[in-house]
């Protein structure tokens, strides 16, 4: 028993104290052990010190010099505030976190995620896009392309109908917006989802939405805090 403890302590100590230098990454035992150890340590640290979230106030938002998007990944109970990484024609915005996880919205409709694991690689969200643009109903096929664990992309096809649930006054941090509430019901033989969009009646901005990203990520609750 004693020998075992010595051995375990020794191995743990060595794995953590393993040192290396240079740019090349050899697949040797010691370098592999130290890589795994460092990932575990980093993961623990991140868990112990979750990022502090700001208290949102209107003055705080008004003073921001860049856009801001609040994203809550409900399945992991994580909240993040994202800034624009890039904007493209066709009202497309790539939003990113400090750690460069990304949420990609076209007209406010989710068409991609990056850095979350088993990401939404791309999407044909025609039914939702048509409904958001017209602020009305629509129907059709939604196709989601989702990354798998063998470096490929799996295709998931869903039949969708978008319903207009009527006008709603939406409040986001002390400011209210005249919106239309749209609900997109999608299903295939394995299950169903419901996405929600609150679309500004004046210019079509999606101020708030709840959108399903992938089986792994689940729903994202998104609020546009600043354009």
């Amino acid at each position: 028993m004693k020998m075992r403890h010595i051995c375990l302590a020794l191995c743990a100590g060595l794995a953590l104290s393993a040192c290396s230098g240079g740019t090349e990454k050899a697949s040797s035992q010691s370098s592999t052990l130290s890589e795994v150890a460092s990932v575990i340590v980093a993961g623990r640290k991140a868990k112990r010190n979750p990022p502090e979230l700001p208290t949102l106030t209107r003055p705080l938002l008004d003073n921001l010099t860049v856009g801001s998007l609040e994203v809550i990944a409900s399945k992991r109970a994580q909240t993040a505030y994202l800034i624009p990484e890039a904007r493209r024609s066709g009202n497309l915005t790539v939003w990113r976190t400090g750690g460069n996880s990304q949420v990609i919205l076209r007209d406010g409709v989710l068409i991609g995620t990056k850095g979350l694991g088993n990401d939404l690689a791309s999407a044909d969200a025609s039914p939702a896009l048509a409904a958001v643009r017209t602020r009305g109903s629509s129907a059709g096929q939604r196709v989601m392309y989702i990354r798998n664990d063998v470096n490929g992309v799996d295709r998931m096809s869903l039949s969708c109908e978008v319903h207009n649930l009527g006008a709603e006054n939406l409040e986001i941090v002390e400011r209210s917006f005249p919106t239309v509430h749209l609900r997109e019901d999608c299903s295939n033989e394995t299950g169903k989802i419901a996405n929600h969009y609150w679309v500004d009646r004046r210019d079509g901005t999606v101020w708030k939405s709840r959108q399903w990203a992938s089986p792994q990520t689940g729903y994202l609750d998104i609020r546009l805090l600043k354009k």
Partner: protein
Amino acid sequence: MQRAILRNTSFAAAFVALGTAAYAQSDDGTPHFKMPVQPSLNLYGSPGVIDMPSGEALPDAQFAVSYSYFGGISRSAMTFQFSPRISATFRYVGIRNWNDNGFDTYRDRNFDVRFLLRRESQYLPAITLGLQDFAGTGINAAEYVVATKTFDRPLSLPGTMKVSAGLGWGRLASSGSIGSLFGSNRPKFNPNSKGGNFATDQWFRGPTAPFAGIEWQIDNRWAVKAEYSSDAYEPETSRGVFTRKSRMNFGAEYQYSQNLRLGAYWMYGSEFGISAQLQVNPKRATTPMMVSGPRTIQQRPTRAENPAAWSEDWSTSATAPTTIRDALRPELEKEGLTLEALSLSANSAELRFINRRYSADAAAIGRAARVMAMILPPSVETFRLVLVQNNLPLSTVTLRRSDLEALEFQPDNTDALLAVTGFSEAAPNLPYSVKNPDLYPSLNFSVGPYVSPSYFDPESPVRADAGVSAEFRYRFAPGWLVAGEMRHRLIGNIADSDRFSNSQLPRVRTDSLRYAQAADTTLHKLYISKQWKPGANTYARVTAGYLEQMFGGVSAELLWKPVNSRLALGVEANYVKQREYEQRFGFQDYSVATGHVSAYYEFGRGYMGQLDVGRYLAGDVGATATVTREFANGWRVGGFFTLTNVSAAEFGEGSFDKGIILQIPVGWFTGQPSKRTVSTTIRPIQRDGGARLDVPGRLYEQVRNGHRNDIVADFGRAWE
């Protein structure tokens, strides 16, 4: 005893570590990708009831590790579902209180294969044919045909019920026989035979007996099982290992997590039994890969908007290439890529670079293309990306910049980009290029722990040495490498064995105990090598020095592998001398010229074959056949066997050399991009016949990863 505890504890620790891993499961009714049902295993580690097999197959590619114990009999097994219908199992069994044939505890290795003859349908059962322990000494030798039918909500009860019934031969016909179907002359089990040959003379011979079992999976966690066994355990009960009082077995199992299942059993009316079953699937990572997002493809202004930006005048400037190179380098480094050379013209650019971070080369290509789109002048439309592996330019991947701009946010951009991507040969040298001046010399070193295991010593099945290892790799010019490793053993019990070699052949591998006993501090490796690309589709390597623990000498290799070909051919020649046991600089008297001609073939869908024909370390002549199944994420499972002109008698126990290859990518556990893998080769027994030199840096694996089929398999990560 202490060792037994150590062994069992580490085994349990590994189980729990993996057992806690969970993966995406749809429990909220949202859409998901269907996962095949995962059957439970029996005490032999095959899909089954308790001691009897069932007719189901594991999900394709499933990898299962299991341990069971009852009545003094332990079984550790590893099963791989090689294809949807074919699975293979390797098992190590120990039977305590054998006290016969010169063994206290009888230990043996088994190989099984199973074929799924038909899948379950609405009304008809799944049927499997199995050969158990078909090539060893045959302690567990049996053949069976078994059918299993699943009933959901049986008799209005909750859960799922599985009913299995089958016919067994051999061990599975030792109790309750109903006669012989295919001849009655089955040779008896002989504990002292050498094993290793296919026991075709006994398959399906002798008496046959029926067996049956039932499994009721009550909810997501709990299941109960009962079975009628046709195994009399004659070799065990006759030697007093345990007393068999009943033909019936009963058990309960608990699904601790998606991966881990634990069971407890009442066996043969007299013994308590336990099992732990771990099932993982290479296609589903324990932690999904999380790569921080890339920079968005920089859009060029349109020609009409800004004609000046599209000017090609820059290309006449003498300083443009170096300026652009210096702008590219730091941006590439941020992505874990190193620029090796760059050539530019007004409309095209070729970037040669080293991928240091991503296991998927497609990811490296995508990131490099994004950096090029950010920095290169708008007039450059064609990007040629060449991955370089230690001075070997592997292939040219050609992308059009306007495709990258147009497709980035399109649905199904992976297939769309692949359709317009070109793959072609990379020339050995890139003329008129600017090179990275800081590549050489480069020194890499690491100091850390090592563990060196040794399996299947009958006295102590798992032995290990551990200590500190110091390594360095020094590159002083393109393709040149000086590398070495020193080890200092701090703790271990490999040297405690007293099983010295009894080999009749030159002791090229069986003297490992003498090597282990000779010294604590050893020079594990020290060599110099040079690799280069001599011409189109060919790759070359020469290596000299202390190549491995037991041999030093010179080695030369030439490989032919076109970028778009499934076939590769190689030739390797070595002249080596056996190293002294102390593993310093000296040699022993034995020297040998050894070498092989090799053919490598990619069958598709990850199945790979390799055939090596040549002369082995002991001077024997023959061939090695290897079949592996590989996954784009880096998992690799396979097996090999070698037949040479050494007779089974000369070879000794096992009759011929064979083994299992297992490689798991580190990123599959950590979810972080990494090129590192953990790999091992498990031989049931290491003898001297059919032994190959272990030369570092063989070419095929280095080259293939950067060729068309591998990049295409990884292409889902090109945009990541």
